[in-house]
């Protein structure tokens, strides 16, 4: 009865070990040694040249943005030009690598999230990134100057914390997804009692709760029904756990501030453009959130389509379950690769 989970964890461990040397491919610190670059992975081929195109556009945007903030220093009425440009920069900037897109999308997929929740998480994570940028620049300016703690150092620490949290979060998601799958093996070994009683319970709950996540609940609960002795509190807890999970995701991603925001804020602060700096970063966050939530939405729709195309309801459930597990595994893998890269830098 322990054989299957054992094999499975060995398999996963093996897959993860294969990935660890790749961490050297990624570099979290910047090549100049000052400031932090956005670490991320981009593939070659079609997708690669798309990213190059995005990259070229970003350069143009960033130049326009630094022009706008310098123009505002001389003429405060140019504030709105700066704000709208910051917004556009946010939208475009987030289309490039980084900014937790892959992680948010994988998390949303892994969790059978509703679209609304995916969008909310994207927005909160983007705002958290902007907020952390404001805090870092403020603390560096008012408290850390002369202490030997540099902004690059502080950002690097947050970066490591962020990736560590993402990896831990992925591990937790994966554990939660795999546990119900492993349970039936235990059940076969002689724990299959009280079936009718629990089945009755579960049906009642399926009708009461969250219709968007209906299929998963049906699947998850039926698989554990031989074993869960107290379905009532656990079902009630589920919503609570999800909220906590969502917040962990937001904090894990949001802890790492966007380098563009840090640079703009520092310049604004040193030139006394407080309002301009804050509004610019807010606009950037909104822009980033729109792009990230668009991608998260696409991820959810892709999963729903895959499930709809499945031949039967049980096949759909299997496809959905597999996608969820893969999503959770991807969060873990991305977190680990980024973490190793950050630790090496």
């Amino acid at each position, binding site marked *: 009865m322990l054989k299957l989970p054992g094999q499975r964890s060995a398999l996963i461990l093996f897959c993860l070990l294969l990935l660890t040397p790749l961490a050297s491919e990624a570099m979290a*610190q*910047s090549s100049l040694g000052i400031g932090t670059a956005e670490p991320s*992975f981009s593939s070659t081929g079609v997708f690669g040249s798309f990213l190059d195109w995005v*990259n070229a556009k970003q350069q143009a945007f960033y130049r326009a943005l630094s022009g706008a903030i310098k123009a505002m220093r001389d003429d405060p009425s140019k504030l709105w030009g700066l704000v709208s440009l910051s917004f556009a920069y946010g939208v475009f900037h987030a289309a490039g690598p980084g900014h937790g897109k892959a992680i948010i999308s994988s998390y949303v997929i892994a969790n059978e999230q509703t679209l609304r929740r995916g969008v909310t998480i994207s927005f909160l994570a983007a705002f958290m990134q902007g907020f952390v940028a404001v805090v870092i620049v403020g603390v560096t300016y008012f408290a850390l100057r002369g202490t030997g703690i540099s902004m690059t150092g502080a950002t690097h620490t947050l970066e490591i914390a962020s990736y560590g949290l993402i990896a831990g979060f992925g591990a937790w998601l994966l554990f939660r997804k795999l546990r119900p799958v492993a349970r039936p093996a235990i059940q076969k070994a002689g724990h299959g009692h009280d079936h009718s009683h629990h089945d009755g319970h579960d049906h009642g709950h399926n009708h009461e709760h969250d219709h968007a996540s209906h299929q998963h609940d049906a699947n998850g609960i039926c698989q554990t029904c031989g074993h869960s002795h107290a379905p009532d509190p656990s079902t009630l807890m589920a919503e609570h756990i999800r909220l906590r999970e969502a917040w962990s995701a937001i904090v894990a991603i949001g802890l790492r501030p966007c380098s563009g925001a840090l640079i703009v804020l520092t310049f604004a602060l040193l030139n006394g453009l407080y309002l301009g700096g804050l509004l610019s970063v807010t606009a950037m966050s909104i822009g980033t959130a729109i792009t990230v939530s668009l991608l998260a939405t696409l991820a959810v729709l892709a999963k729903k389509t895959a499930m709809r195309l499945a031949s039967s309801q049980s096949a759909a459930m299997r496809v959905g379950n597999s996608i969820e597990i893969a999503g959770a595994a991807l969060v873990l893998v991305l977190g680990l690769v980024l973490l190793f890269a950050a630790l090496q830098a």
Partner: protein
Amino acid sequence: MRKITASFNCLLMGTALVALTTAHVQAHPHVFAEARMEVVVGDNKAIDTLRHVWRFDELFSSTVLLEFDANSNLKLEPEELAEVGTTVHASLADFDFYTSVDHNGKAVEITAPDVIHVDFQDGQLLMFFAVAPREPLPLEGTLSFGAYDPTMYAALDFLTDDDLVVEGPATGCKHTIIRPNADEVLAQNEDKLTQAFFDDPENNDISKFFATRLELIC
């Protein structure tokens, strides 16, 4: 069903593995610098040194000011500037000091500069340093010199063709400035780019295709 899930799971992880193996890091530029490069030819008709001068944009410069201002007076004194130079030197050592020299299409190794000199003028950070070819590099065949950041974190711009110059007795060499057009490079290399990556995994930075360079044909 468990079997299917497990295999599907590993399949997806395998896909991620392949995706990550062929992947490389591509940061978007957050730092811009106006660059100048001087190729100095010695009396022995060989390349003596390459001098770089970079003037960084005001935004990045302000972050450097904030980070290295050890005595909190919002000015960078000589010791603080030297600290900037040391930090950048340590980091650029992994990236050939953003310098790329080719001789007849083959990469030429360069030596590290003794020191990176740093100055701060009118809110802009300035860096000066010189690198030299490790082996003697005579003026013959096709020589190409460029300066760029392979990680695309910093974008070095040579604003005019006069920012890439040859100093010393380089008579008899044809001197051209090549500024690749990004769209054309992408169009011409669409399939080659991918192929190049697989053929030469050690040296696969795409930014080389886009970098402005000085070519000497002697």
